[in-house]
């Protein structure tokens, strides 16, 4: 077991704890960059989708995991980013400009929505964001000039450094690298936010709004900022998703997608960047696993390929229930426990990660 004896604040806020960790993450980045040469086209497409969901997950993680403001309507900001990107691309705005603009648009919309949401907390916020998520569908259909209504829109391919990039060009490799680069950039921004006073303020608000205020955090300002940043990240993911889907309409942003995003960060582990990635892996690859499993079961039973509608969501929901009951800290929390077990072997104690129970005390007056 390694022990980090920190002698300065600089050391405390380093992005990588030590050289070994930096090395591991570097190796992972190399592996991710080399993935197009290791996988076939189909798997690469799935991996690209996973990166996009991870980016969206990072957005929601900042809000739900680090600021403690659950949002059940994040598909709305995914839609903002996607439609804005297509709108700009159709008007000939080059991708390096339209991409951040699309994210910015989603961020501004998010910050505007945050202003009334500031007064709410807990379930009221969840419900209000749920309402935003539900309205999204109808609003997309109503804003026909901008969104193409029910028919949807086509995303033109990206022209970057003289080459056309879209999902299918050159086996999807350039698009994969583009997504990977965007994800790594956002991840670095995220890490830097977390170790800055802004990030500390977010975490303080999550842990206790009252204490944060007492320590001089401007709660309203930082909540708005968290909303804006979170929606900015999610909008970027939306812009990439637009190019990934190629053609899409309101059905890509149903309220179920919002719920799925929230489930994603919960399964991954709220309050950790790793959680967004792990959640995205589950969301993208679990349906695949279910299909494979169903085929095998059908083969064993000798029956035809009987498909059960809604099986994916059903299994997904069951997995989620299992997680909340058995491992509320998500996949990343479980990983931490396993790692600690081996690091401390044989000194690990069962209740090392035990959390304080909080009992309900209402603030209602009647």
């Amino acid at each position, binding site marked *: 077991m390694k022990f980090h004896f920190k002698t300065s604040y600089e050391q405390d806020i380093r992005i990588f704890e030590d050289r070994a960790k930096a090395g591991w993450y570097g190796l992972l980045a190399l592996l991710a960059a080399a993935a197009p040469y290791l996988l076939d086209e189909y798997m690469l497409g799935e991996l690209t989708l996973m990166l996009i969901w991870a980016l969206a997950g990072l957005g929601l993680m900042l809000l739900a995991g680090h600021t403690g403001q*659950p949002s059940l309507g994040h598909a709305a900001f995914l839609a903002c980013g996607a439609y804005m990107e297509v709108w700009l691309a159709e008007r000939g705005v080059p991708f390096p400009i339209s991409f951040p603009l699309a994210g910015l648009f989603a961020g501004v919309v998010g910050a505007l929505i945050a202003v*009334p949401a500031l*007064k*709410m907390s*807990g*379930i*009221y916020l*969840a*419900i*209000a964001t*749920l*309402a*935003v998520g*539900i*309205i999204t569908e*109808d*609003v997309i*259909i*109503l804003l026909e000039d901008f969104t193409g209504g029910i028919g949807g829109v086509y995303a033109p391919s990206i022209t970057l450094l003289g080459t056309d990039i879209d999902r299918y060009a050159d086996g999807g490799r350039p698009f994969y690298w583009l997504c990977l680069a965007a994800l790594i950039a956002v991840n670095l921004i995220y890490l830097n936010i977390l170790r800055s006073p802004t990030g500390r303020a977010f975490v303080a608000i999550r842990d206790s*709004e*009252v*204490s944060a205020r*007492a320590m001089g955090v401007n709660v309203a300002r930082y909540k708005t900022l968290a909303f804006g940043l979170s929606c900015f990240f999610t909008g970027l993911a939306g812009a990439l998703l637009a190019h990934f889907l190629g053609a899409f309409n309101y059905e890509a942003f149903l309220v179920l997608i919002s*719920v799925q995003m*929230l*489930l994603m960060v*919960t399964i991954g582990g709220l309050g950790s960047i790793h959680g967004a990635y792990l959640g995205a892996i589950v969301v993208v690859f679990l349906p695949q696993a279910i299909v494979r499993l169903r085929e095998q079961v059908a083969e064993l039973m000798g029956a035809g390929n009987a498909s*059960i*509608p*809604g*099986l994916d*969501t*059903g299994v*997904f*929901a*069951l997995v*989620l*229930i299992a997680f*909340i*009951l058995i491992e*509320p800290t998500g996949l990343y929390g479980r990983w931490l426990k396993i790692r600690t077990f081996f690091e401390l072997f044989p000194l690990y104690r069962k209740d090392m990660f035990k959390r304080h*129970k*909080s*009992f*309900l*005390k*209402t*603030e*209602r*007056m*009647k």
Partner: protein
Amino acid sequence: MDFSQLLVGGIANGCVYGLVALGFVLIYKATEAVNFAQGDMMMLGAFIALQAVNEDRWGLPFALGLALAVVLMGAISWAIEVAIIRRLFGQPQFAVVILTIALGFVLRFVAGVIWGHEPQTLQTPMAGRQFELGPVSVGYDEAFVILATAALTLLLYLFFARTKLGIAMQAASQNQLAAYYVGVPVKRVSSMIWALSGMLATVAGVLFAAKGSIDPSAGLLGIKAFAAAVIGGFGSLPGALLGGLLIGLVETFAARYGAAGYSQIAPYAIMLLVLVLRPNGLFAQFAQKKV
């Protein structure tokens, strides 16, 4: 004429929303948790009633089938509380939100597997019959919905205000630990409230199915009932009912007079407006948090 006809239809719709909203409020009042699966419990209750009552299923008499569905659904809700929700005791409120959302998906999936995804009709003695009330013709189903809702609301109000159990439930909702110290069996009370809310959901589901058809995604109606509960302030039983009526009326009138596409948004727009102007509902019950 047109106006009063719409009024009756809107009130009947609103009563169903109000009843589902009452279910939310019950659980919220007793455990401060929000059951996002309430709409799906409503759907399941309606399907159980349909299974019991319809000719091509068990073909029981309507009243008997309804009673059976209510009892069964109460048992199922009780079991859900004991098996799943109770284990979240002492965890953050938000865990329950996510859990009940997932639970809703599971219930929808189960109902889809058992009863299929096509809309089905519940055969009721009220179907297709109506009487004249002045210039307005009122369907038996609409009258049944309105009367049943009024009766249930009164009953619930008396239950919470007058009975020992109702008061114990209120105590458990205000301070779990303190309630436990003064002798309220907090866990059992919370099971009971879930069972009660499941029964209420069944009644709402049957009323809903009596007015039209039912399919596994009918639970999404629960979200409209949310709007109702929020407008009412979430902790208030009469508020939930009023909110339900408001949503039902607005929806009906918006569908008739409003532009196409805008009427679906109307209930949520009102809810957002209420949340912006009065973040704790029209009947606010919160005070500034004390440390």
